[in-house]
């Protein structure tokens, strides 16, 4: 039960700025994900909160009190690391009890808390095992138990599932969400996996080059990415170069209606694959099917549109489309990014519906 304030937090390594004036608040009980590509500064930001990196400038506050000057072992935070963090010479019980022992709790209290923590991560009965006797997923569950048993004000997770296989990752993700909801704990989860972030987070901070590009709810981040970087990084997006003139967008040989308030000049049009439908004879974009990828319950089609380029769309199983066949596409909703505007402009065709896939 705590609130975290990151205030103009900056970290420089030599001449390189790893985190550039990050500013945000993680509310009580909130699950925030920091999402970004490798080297964007997300782990450095988390390590500053944990106390493993000293900020160059800025402040970190928990419930209004600064913790920036506190060493890591005095902070009311607990961290789950990427991997290799269980002490191999200690049993599961000793690993979880270690932090409790440092707090000088009685043996009976420690036993009770370890038992509860193991129940929470579904590992009751594993107390006497050593880390080497556990699978990767079990080890990360113990690491999670070791962190939450201390009842930290803020739980920090640094890509804890990145070394696990895809199925286990999804399962542990669901388990983590359940535990966070049950314990009502404030958590920050760092990941480069957008699916992980979209499924876990109450809010996502997308980072690039040390800066926070956008901080919003997952649905907003997906539907209205505020920068071209976020548009390109989150999900699949068709980014097409266009010219805005006379209330229209010229994309290759085709024209699209321009959103209100758009200034004339070179712009980038961003169209989600699910915002493109087949058909629209006469006004549709005509081309050929280049690739068809069957992804289970839907297909991803890459169409080559002369003068426009490759356009990705999602299709349900029907109608049948084969490679090399002619295709006509009809975009229903798009965002327009202008070079000097802070936010994109949206255009939605009248009657356009959300894609079902």
């Amino acid at each position: 039960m705590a609130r975290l304030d990151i205030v103009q937090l900056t970290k420089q390594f030599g001449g390189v700025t790893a985190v550039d004036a990050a500013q945000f608040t993680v509310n009580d009980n909130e699950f925030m994900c920091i999402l970004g590509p490798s080297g964007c500064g997300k782990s450095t930001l988390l390590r500053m909160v944990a106390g493993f990196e000293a900020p160059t400038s800025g402040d970190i506050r928990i419930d209004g009190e600064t913790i920036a000057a506190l060493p890591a072992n005095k902070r009311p935070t607990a961290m789950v690391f990427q991997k290799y963090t269980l002490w191999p010479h200690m049993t599961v019980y000793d690993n979880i009890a270690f932090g409790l022992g440092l707090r000088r709790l009685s043996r009976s209290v420690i036993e009770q808390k370890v038992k509860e923590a193991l129940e929470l991560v579904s590992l009751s009965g594993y107390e006497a095992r050593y880390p080497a006797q556990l699978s990767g997923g079990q080890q990360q569950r113990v690491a999670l138990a070791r962190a939450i048993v201390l009842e930290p004000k803020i739980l920090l997770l640094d890509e804890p599932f990145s070394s696990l296989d895809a199925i286990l990752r999804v399962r542990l993700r669901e388990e983590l969400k359940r535990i966070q909801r049950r314990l009502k704990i404030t958590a920050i989860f760092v990941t480069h996996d957008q699916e992980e972030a979209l499924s876990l987070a109450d809010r996502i901070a997308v980072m690039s080059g040390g800066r926070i590009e956008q901080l919003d709810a997952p649905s907003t981040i997906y539907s209205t990415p505020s920068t071209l970087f976020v548009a390109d990084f989150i999900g699949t997006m068709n980014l097409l170069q266009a010219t805005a003139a006379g209330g229209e967008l010229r994309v290759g040989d085709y024209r699209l209606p321009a959103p209100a308030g758009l200034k004339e000049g070179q712009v980038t049009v961003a169209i989600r694959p699910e915002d493109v439908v087949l058909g629209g004879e006469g006004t549709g974009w005509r081309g050929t099917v280049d690739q068809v990828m069957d992804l289970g319950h839907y297909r991803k089609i890459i169409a080559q549109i002369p003068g426009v380029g490759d356009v990705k769309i999602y299709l349900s199983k029907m109608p049948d489309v084969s490679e090399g066949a002619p295709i006509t596409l009809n975009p229903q909703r798009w965002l327009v990014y202008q070079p000097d505007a802070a936010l994109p402009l949206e255009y939605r065709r009248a009657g356009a519906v959300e894609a079902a896939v």
Partner: protein
Amino acid sequence: MTTQTLSPKTDSPRQWRQAAFAYLLVAPPLLLMLLLIFIPALQSIARTLTVDVDGQVGFSFSRYVAFFQDRISVSNLMFTFQVVFLTLATIFVVCFPLALYLRFAQGRLAAAVQILALFPLFVPGIILCYALIRFLGTRGTLETILNVVGVSGYRTPYLKPEAIIIGLVWESIPFTVLVLTAGLRQVNDSLIESARDVGANDWTIFRRIILPLIMRPVLIAFSLNFLGIFGAYTVPYLLGPAAPQMMGVFMQQTFGQYRRPDDAETQAVITFIICSLVGLLYVRTVAKQRIQQENE
């Protein structure tokens, strides 16, 4: 009913050829060890356990009884143990901080410290001894410096047990630092950070996390240093007192000066047995490490 017998892979001619080639490679050093170490050692042990009375050779512990009844011999053995354990303790007190610094520090100073720590490796023992005599001895460099800064009453450790310990510690630093630093590098940073994260301070991290994780390198450094120090000759002979003596000096004097090869042989076998016990600790530690590495 037919039975099928699958010949194991090791029975294939190729495997046999490979095994034979491997044995051929290790044969020369094994043969040398057998001829120059094991056979003479066994002959010595056998001689110390026999007694010749009027041409009649019989089994006897009399040489060992004589050794342990001789006050000087026992005093020298105890003195050797004292010097060995004090030296080992000093080595770890000096080398642990150095190794920890080299493991966690970065930059030019750490590189300079590493070079300094390895420097004794390139200095022969006899040069070290004379350098220490010039430095620590009466009217040596240290006393001169102390006099210049107004400190009087310097008592030199030269020809005292302390001088042996200083010399042996100096000689052992490079090897110990190398072994400990290599062991510390195996301890992942995240293991230390996760301990700090749950509230451990530096001392607790060292005691509860780092030390148990590098117990094998510590045992290797302990046992190899023990073997080197227990049988040391040059440093105790040149820097140490005339009495009591360490076993290396004692053996040499009994053999060369007092012309009592039988007694020297008994002293050597006793030294050999003590060192073998510590050697077993080393072999056991290394074997465990190899098994663990193979299992990983």
